[in-house]
């Protein structure tokens, strides 16, 4: 009896040892401020979705960091030469988490779901969906939309399961979320956390993942921590395995921390300074040009961001083809050119270095939203403008109300802002005359730009044509100086020793394809 007990104790001890030695099957990821507060995982209706969305659901196609498209639920696709038909072949054997099959009928049901929602623009160009056979679907278009693949690749076009979607109504994405993704949603508390468990049947990963089968972690917890210090301390103490987006302010501390690894991937964000073209002195193009060339992008990159990321010299992130404009159109620091332009515009240096014209000093308002990073940035820009003779008075406005202030249209002059987007149509969003005030903070209203906008937005038939049209439109906007480009942040992920990252992070950020390749450390 004694021996038997001894034996069981030994076995228990060994089992415990084995359990502690085995790689952990669970991981905790922390989403910081920018990703906090997504209210639902319903992809068709939500306007804010987080990283976990692309693990619960799949999309027809996914996009890589180089902006190329790869099939996820679709195995291949082609568009007719006139751009009026798109035919997608779907992968066979795909099943939703509740066992329902995914096929052409799903897509026929899915596209009309966007009608009347905030995301309706994604399918606006689709006239109807035709089921060709069980695994082939054809989109008949109202007009050519070369941007269709981009839309299909966004998180907003993740494919939900029809029966659960209809049965749950508004609760879909909140109490339950059924997709075909590598993880099933187990629990979701808005603003707090999402718990996911592995979908063991998963076998239809895109070619952006090395791992084609089920994910390597059994369970993932995505916590939402808005307070950046708390998020960092959770990682530092081992309470979390990864910060999905490292707050810029914490980069130096994380770089110095030996227990934590940092990996950076190309960013999809751009920091810039809109110039209100409708108010003095910026109605004068020379003053705008002088202001734009006064910003020293490289100094900001090095002094504020420790060289992390890249200087910006156009309005688009450099991974977009439309950012490849004529070198002459690029805007990068040239103080002599700047000073010359101010002189030509009649603004002569006064006794204290600040320029004066007709007895009026070159004093302008420089706005930004609250947050340490913006505050530091705006102070550097203020000093850089002073170096060419412009005095900028800083106002820091609450992030929740700054857009309303822009809508007043004439109260602002210069501002420091940033946007996150991986498509050239952002040029339309920020510079189309019909959006003056906000989002067109520059109040840019130019007939030639409107003409080029119309061509780029509505007249492009193919992707290549669209790229060419948007490049032209972008180039023209650059030549009118309604903004000064500043900085392209890199996306930074910080992780602890319990997880192993794949050598290459694929996709436009940390999404489903990369998450499939993240493994527990041995």
């Amino acid at each position, binding site marked *: 009896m004694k021996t038997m007990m001894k034996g069981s104790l030994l076995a228990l001890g060994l089992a415990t040892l084995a359990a502690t030695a085995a790689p952990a099957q669970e991981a905790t990821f922390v989403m910081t401020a920018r990703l906090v507060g997504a209210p639902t995982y319903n992809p068709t209706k939500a306007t804010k979705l987080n990283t976990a969305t692309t693990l619960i659901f799949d999309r027809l196609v996914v996009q890589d960091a180089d902006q190329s498209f790869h099939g996820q639920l679709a195995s291949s696709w082609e568009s007719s030469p006139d751009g009026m038909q798109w035919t997608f072949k779907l992968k066979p054997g795909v099943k939703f988490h509740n066992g329902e099959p995914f096929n052409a009928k799903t897509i026929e049901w899915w596209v009309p779901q966007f009608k009347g929602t*905030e995301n309706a623009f994604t399918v606006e160009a689709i006239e109807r969906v035709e089921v060709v056979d069980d695994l082939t679907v054809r989109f008949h278009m109202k007009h050519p939309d070369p941007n269709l693949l981009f839309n299909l690749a966004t998180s907003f076009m993740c494919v939900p399961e029809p029966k659960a979607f209809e049965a749950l109504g508004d609760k879909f994405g*909140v109490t339950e979320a059924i997709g075909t993704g590598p993880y099933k949603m187990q629990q979701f508390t*808005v603003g707090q956390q999402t718990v996911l468990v592995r979908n063991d049947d998963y076998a239809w990963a895109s070619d952006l993942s090395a791992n084609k089968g089920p994910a390597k972690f059994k369970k993932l917890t995505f916590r939402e921590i808005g307070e950046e210090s708390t998020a960092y301390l959770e990682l530092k*103490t081992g309470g979390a395995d990864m910060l999905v987006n490292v707050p810029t302010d914490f980069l130096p501390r994380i770089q110095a921390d030996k227990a934590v690894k940092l990996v950076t991937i190309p960013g999809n964000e751009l920091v810039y300074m809109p110039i209100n073209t409708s108010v003095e002195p910026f109605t004068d193009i020379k003053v705008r040009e002088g202001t734009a060339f006064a910003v020293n992008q490289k100094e900001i990159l090095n002094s504020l961001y420790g060289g992390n990321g890249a200087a910006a010299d156009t309005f688009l992130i450099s991974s977009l083809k439309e950012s490849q404009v004529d070198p002459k159109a690029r805007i990068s620091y040239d103080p002599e050119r700047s000073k010359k332009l101010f002189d030509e515009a009649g603004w002569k240096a006064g006794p204290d270095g600040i320029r004066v014209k007709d007895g009026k000093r070159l004093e302008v308002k420089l706005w930004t939203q609250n947050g340490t990073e913006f505050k530091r940035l705006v102070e550097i820009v203020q000093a850089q403008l002073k170096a060419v003779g412009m005095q900028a008075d800083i106002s820091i406005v609450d992030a929740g109300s700054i857009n309303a202030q822009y809508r007043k249209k004439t109260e602002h002059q210069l501002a420091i802002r940033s946007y996150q*987007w991986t498509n050239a149509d952002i040029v339309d969003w920020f510079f189309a005359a019909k959006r003056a005030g906000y989002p067109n903070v520059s109040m840019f209203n130019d007939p030639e730009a409107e003409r080029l906008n119309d061509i780029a937005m509505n007249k492009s038939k193919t992707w290549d044509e669209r790229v060419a049209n948007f490049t032209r439109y972008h180039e023209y906007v650059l030549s009118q100086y309604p903004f000064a480009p500043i900085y392209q942040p890199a996306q930074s992920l910080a992780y602890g020793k319990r997880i192993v990252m794949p050598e290459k992070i694929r996709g436009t950020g940390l999404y489903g394809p990369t998450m499939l390749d993240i493994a527990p450390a041995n």
Partner: protein
Amino acid sequence: MLRFAIRRLAMLVPVFLAVSLVIFMIIHLVPGDPLEHLIQVGSSPEQRAQMIARYGLDQPLLVQYGRWLAKIVTGDLGDAIVMRQPVARLIAENMPHSLALGGTALLFSTTVGIVTGVLAASFRDSLFDRTVMGFILLGSTLPSFWLALLMILMFAVQFEWFPVSGARSWDALVLPALTIGIGGTALIARVTRAAMIEIAGRDFVRVLQAKGVPFWRIQLRHVLQQAMLPVMTILGLRIGWILGGAVTVEYVFARPGLGSLLITALGQRDYPLVQGCLLMLAIAVMLGTLLGDLAQAALDPRLREAMGAR
């Protein structure tokens, strides 16, 4: 007593109306609106106009207020615009976390506050009195945001006694409850101490002392009992204050609760949700004050008479 309670309750109605109007106007007068979070790159200005109409945001403010008030008297707090869920459901999910946190903080500040107050009064002007009261005062003057980070750095990062954040286990409650509790402790200790000292100077205490009743018996059975009257009022006020004070603390400790919900809602200008959360906090303050008054009235008949109820 019943008449007193009814009168006191009736007084809450105009207060509630005034508070609801202030809550509604404040959030609507702040620049920004929930649509900033709903408009996508790619949607047109016309779509924005349609959405403004859909959520009734194009109506005059007083009309919007009237609609909201008419709904809340029937118990419907409306639907959150950005969160897309019934406000009542969101509050119901988060309230238990805030009550647990507030309850623990209140329990901590009450017990520590009363014990410290009694000891400080009993050893008046001693080194103990001055040191402890000084420390408590210092703790209560620190901003809760700063105190929270200090607590995390000391007890979670340095000593690793408690988790940094979250609400997954009971021990995650300790640091946030302490952070909130410390402020109340100072107040309760000060009030207890002052009341104890004041009552200890009364004639009946001298009589008891002359009769040879032991010091601690007089302090605990006679003086403390009467000193509890002002403490009751303070406790009542603290209930609402604690829930309000939990707003930043919940955010720093990444805990679910009314505070975290309110901060998210404020950032998104989700009007119905902000209004719902603020209303709950206001109701908590009103009920807390009511409870404090009722408790005091129950203990002190003179107060009931002063309020005109016999």
